[in-house]
């Protein structure tokens, strides 16, 4: 292994070795150091990804690169994983979930996401995708006290397997059509690859639609979000969605104009925005509601991807924006959960006054998801609709903005319950621990600061896609 290769691999190695280390230490000294090591590994990866000097291009045989794109997403995944670990630590203790496998698997999932973002050929891409999905099979089913968690894990496994099959077959067809697994070359060559390449793209899109939960491939999402442990859902919403967006951004821009893929992606975006928002309107379960909301939010991302050009930047920006909003929303819910999970929107009654910190974070996340300025949700939506109009997708943009207006209703429902209704048994809800407060504080600050001052992140998103 050359030094260049080693330098390229370091951020991924930190995550992978961190995961193994946590697992082994857990067997020797079962204690509480797993989260600490995990957070340290995440911080290390993020710092390395952001601060390491530019590296020469690694040879293609390695399968991964350390491009600005990879750095950006590595840092993002490491931060979301670290914040999720902070959320999970005390939550797991309250719900009686023991074992260092939890933080270890979170780290492994982050490793998988990192591999996706740094992949240079389709094989590593697929392996990364599988690694991260595999981590979530375990994490979603981790809460052995609740049957719903196991059920969710099984559903996720089945859906994940189907989607993996689609992706694998799509990659195989692309390989067959172009004769190379290198992403850049395969994408370029696929333009002349005829029907087989097109079928490959179609299958890939279908598989990814599952991952990013675009309607009509979204049916698993509400069950998984409802059943999984809430900090895991926070990580799933922020990290896993981000990884799927990163994957799209790896393969779509080199394609240069999505051509025949436009029609299916248009349909997916349209269905996601409408179905997601409409289904969330009357959903009484808060986690299911946020699941449908995530379907809708990914519909906006699909709109951005469809528009091309500035849309890719908007999608990269929105990955971070949704990451912050998802962490804040699910993190606040997780921090309120004691032994019993928080189920209904009604359960939030009056919590804005009894648990002011979590209430504010949740309310900010809701307003951000609804796209109200000055939050990152507004900046992201602005960029998406900007790109959509610029890319000539005006009809879909109008549909999207109308569904966004409707969506405000269910986001407001949470805020209404937090601040405008009387609590009946607020005493049973948790106050935030230090770790949770830190994690929530970072997410909420990111929502506000990136909303008021989104310029640098927009510039960065544009720079990594060059």
């Amino acid at each position: 292994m050359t030094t260049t290769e080693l330098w390229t691999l370091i951020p991924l190695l930190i995550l992978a070795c961190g995961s193994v280390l946590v697992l082994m230490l857990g067997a020797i000294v079962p204690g509480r150091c797993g989260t600490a090591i995990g957070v340290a590994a995440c911080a290390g990866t993020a710092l390395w990804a952001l601060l390491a000097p530019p590296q020469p291009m690694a040879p293609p045989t390695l399968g991964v690169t350390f491009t600005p794109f990879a750095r950006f997403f590595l840092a993002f995944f490491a931060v979301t994983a670290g914040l999720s670990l902070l959320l999970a630590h005390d939550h797991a203790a309250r719900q009686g979930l023991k074992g260092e496998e939890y933080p270890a698997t979170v780290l492994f999932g982050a490793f998988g996401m990192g591999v996706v973002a740094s992949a240079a050929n389709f094989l590593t891409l697929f392996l990364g995708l599988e690694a991260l999905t595999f981590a979530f099979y375990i994490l979603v089913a981790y809460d052995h006290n609740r049957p719903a968690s196991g059920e969710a894990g099984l559903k996720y496994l089945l859906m994940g397997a189907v989607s993996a099959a689609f992706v694998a077959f799509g990659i195989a067809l692309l390989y067959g059509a172009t004769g190379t697994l290198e992403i850049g070359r395969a994408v370029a060559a696929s333009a002349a690859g005829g029907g087989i390449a097109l079928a490959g793209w179609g299958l890939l899109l279908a598989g990814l639609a599952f991952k990013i939960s675009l309607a009509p491939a979204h049916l698993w999402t509400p069950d998984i979000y409802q059943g999984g442990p809430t900090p895991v859902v926070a990580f799933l919403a922020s990290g896993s969605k981000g990884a799927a967006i990163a994957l799209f951004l790896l393969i779509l821009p080199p394609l240069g104009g999505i051509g025949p893929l436009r029609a299916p992606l248009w349909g997916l975006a349209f269905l996601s925005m409408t179905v997601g928002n409409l289904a969330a309107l009357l959903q009484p379960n808060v986690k299911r509601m946020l699941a449908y909301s995530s379907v809708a939010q990914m519909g906006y991302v699909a709109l951005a991807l469809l528009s091309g050009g500035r849309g890719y930047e908007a999608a990269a920006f929105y990955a971070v924006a949704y990451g912050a909003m998802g962490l804040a929303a699910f993190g606040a819910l997780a921090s309120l959960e004691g032994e019993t999970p928080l189920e209904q929107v009604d359960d939030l009654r009056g919590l804005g006054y009894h648990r002011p910190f979590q209430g504010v974070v949740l309310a900010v996340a809701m307003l951000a998801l609804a796209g109200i300025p000055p939050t990152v949700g507004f900046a992201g939506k602005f960029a998406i609709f900007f790109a959509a109009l610029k890319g000539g997708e005006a009809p879909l943009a109008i549909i999207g903005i109308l569904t966004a207006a409707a969506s405000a209703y269910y986001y407001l429902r949470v805020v209404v319950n937090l601040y405008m209704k009387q609590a009946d048994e607020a005493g049973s809800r948790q106050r935030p621990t230090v770790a949770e407060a830190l994690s929530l504080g970072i997410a909420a600050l990111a929502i506000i600061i990136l909303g008021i001052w989104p310029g640098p992140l927009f510039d960065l998103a544009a720079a990594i896609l060059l």
Partner: protein
Amino acid sequence: MTSYPILTILIFLPLAGCLCLAPVWSRRAAVRPIALGFAVAELALAGWLLVTAPGMPTAPGAPAGYFLWEDAAWIERFGIRYLLGMDGISLLMGALTAFITVVAMAVSWRAVTERTALHYFLILLMESGIMGVFLALDLVLFYLFWEVMLIPMFFLIGIWGHGRRIYSAVKFFLYTLAGSLLMLLAIIGVYLIHGDATGTYTFALPLLAKAPIAHAAAPWLFGAFLLAFAIKFPLFPVHTWLPDAHTDAPTAGSVILAALLLKTGAYGLVRFGYPLFPEAARGFTPLLSVLAVVGILYASWIAYAQEDMKRMVAYSSVGHMGFVALGIASWSPVALSGSILQMVNHGVTTGALFALVGMLDERTDTRELAAYGGVWGKAPKLAFFFLLFAMASAGLPGLNNFTGEFLILAGVFRTTPAAAAIAFIGIVLPLIYTVRLVQEVLFQTERQPLQLPDVTLREGALLAVLALIGVSIGVHPKPLLDILKVPVALLTGTAP
């Protein structure tokens, strides 16, 4: 003096007040003076500008008419700038905002006993947002403030409101959001179309207005702006959120809603709608006039049928704002000055009426007309102010509303006599419901033995100030009209 970022201070001083409330959050005794202190400081600043600014020359780098100007890069990737400017119109609206905020704080001084800090926090936050709306000249910055001012009002109605407060709060929010989201698309559309046509991609109003859009999409874009503004106005038939929001809002919320939020719609149309799309706007003028006239007549008719005082005043608002819309639609210097003056008048008069209804409600816990009667005998001072502002609202000459309505009708008569003729009826109709209001509440024999102590010193002082302003504008509106002269002439293209 131009070296200080006065406009930024105007916008962010209330926000600083919000932050200063944090350390004393749970101490009601400390919260109120601090909040009021910031509001009064803001009012002092705005008042000082009102006195000194008319003589100021155009600021360096600013288009004609703008005597204060701030411009800084904000989100360069999209060409969005932090662009603020103040001309005569913004000045009047800004001063009104600072004044009404103080009024709103004063009327809720005793009424709000729960979550006091949050209440004042939201009022200050809203002041920042509204001030931003009146000063921003970059379309995206304007949109940002436009939405920011929604949230505090939503909370004010939802937390301290009465009756179906949550329903009304959500309805208010969704109505306005739906309109403004389409405006957001139109804003982006303006940017792209203007940029494609001229090569300069910008959200800055002065640049955009220099080369108005002559594209087939212009009517659609204007339509989106108009919808957002019409909902805020509110124009018939998108006014239905207003009676609910007003009725269920706490007094401070009603005062701010009527006196300030409604003005943002009219202001937006004057500042952005017409200058950006002069051609398309002309095409919409008949529609706007018809809606305005229908609104005036319909609102007066409905107001007469109300049994709830607050609802009656709320419908009267719809009617008054119809006059403002009518004046804007004619886009002639006289009518437009009248409209802007009427915005100030309506803010003062209707704000005062809502404050009075709030005071009655505070004393007796009812707003039903049928419950009152004989107030003149029980609380003569309160009744005097009630009569005064009711008469002002009905357009009695010598009081402020008359000046605005007169100018509007005089201006409109020259452009569209038919509309003016019908609108004249709209001057008479308010008399009918106002007389009913005054007769039933003040003069009717006592119908229920209500405990009605007269105004306190705080309330009396507040009402006296409002009355003083009302009478002085009614008798001598010239200083305000002088401030408006230059910007209105520039807007209507009649500048020398």
